[in-house]
């Protein structure tokens, strides 16, 4: 009985395309604490960092990004909190 069940892989109806890391690959932007405009894209409206599972930043670059955001905050370029 069991061997007659077709082994067709069922594709999930809402398949999400895997996003790639925005800092990997050629002509990717460099992570720099002075580039406020770039950093702002990875920070929420409240000033918190957006998790990499949403932005698809690779772990290596997320660490660099975190450092850059913290430097920018220290220099008053980015807020610690927004209320």
């Amino acid at each position, binding site marked *: 009985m069991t061997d*007659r069940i*077709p082994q*067709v892989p*069922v*594709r999930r*109806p*809402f*398949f*999400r*395309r895997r*996003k790639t890391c925005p800092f990997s690959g050629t002509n990717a932007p460099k992570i*720099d*604490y*002075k*580039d*406020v*405009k*770039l950093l702002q*894209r990875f920070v929420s409206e409240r000033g918190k960092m957006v998790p990499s599972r949403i932005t698809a930043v690779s772990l290596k670059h997320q660490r660099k990004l975190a450092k850059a955001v913290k*430097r920018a*905050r*220290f*220099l*008053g*370029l*980015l*807020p*610690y909190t927004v209320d």
Partner: protein
Amino acid sequence: MPLYEHVFIARQDVSSQQVDQMSDGFKSIIEEGGGKVSMVESWGLRSLTYKIKKNRKGHYVRLNIEAPTAAVLEMERQMRIHDDVLRFLTVRVDELDPNPAALLSSRGGRDDRRGGRDDRGPRRDRDDRPRRDDRPRRDDRPARDDAAKTETKGSA
């Protein structure tokens, strides 16, 4: 000699000439210590995102430094004493970036940045929507195969 990128913020009340004098002073400290300052870049008066020592704005200056550690430490010590310096950050870098800071190019005008539709960035919230060609096509649905098999079995 190690390379450093240094940014300091001066109080908003000082004039830009005074800021230039200050950066010249810090530059000479580095040079006395046997180093050199390859670039002095003033970002002008920018508003701080939060108050620092009761200031809402500050003059930003970036220095690219190639100097022995002792000279940088001496400059930092002077900065801590200096009343007009709100804050500073020294970062050791592997290579100095000769290009002007990225935030300067975007500072051109707040108003015209919001100008047209075209200069808007890609919509981040749309990125993870499934694309049409990623949907399963009708003809590889498993259901029909299944039905065909049961039919042949019934006739046998």
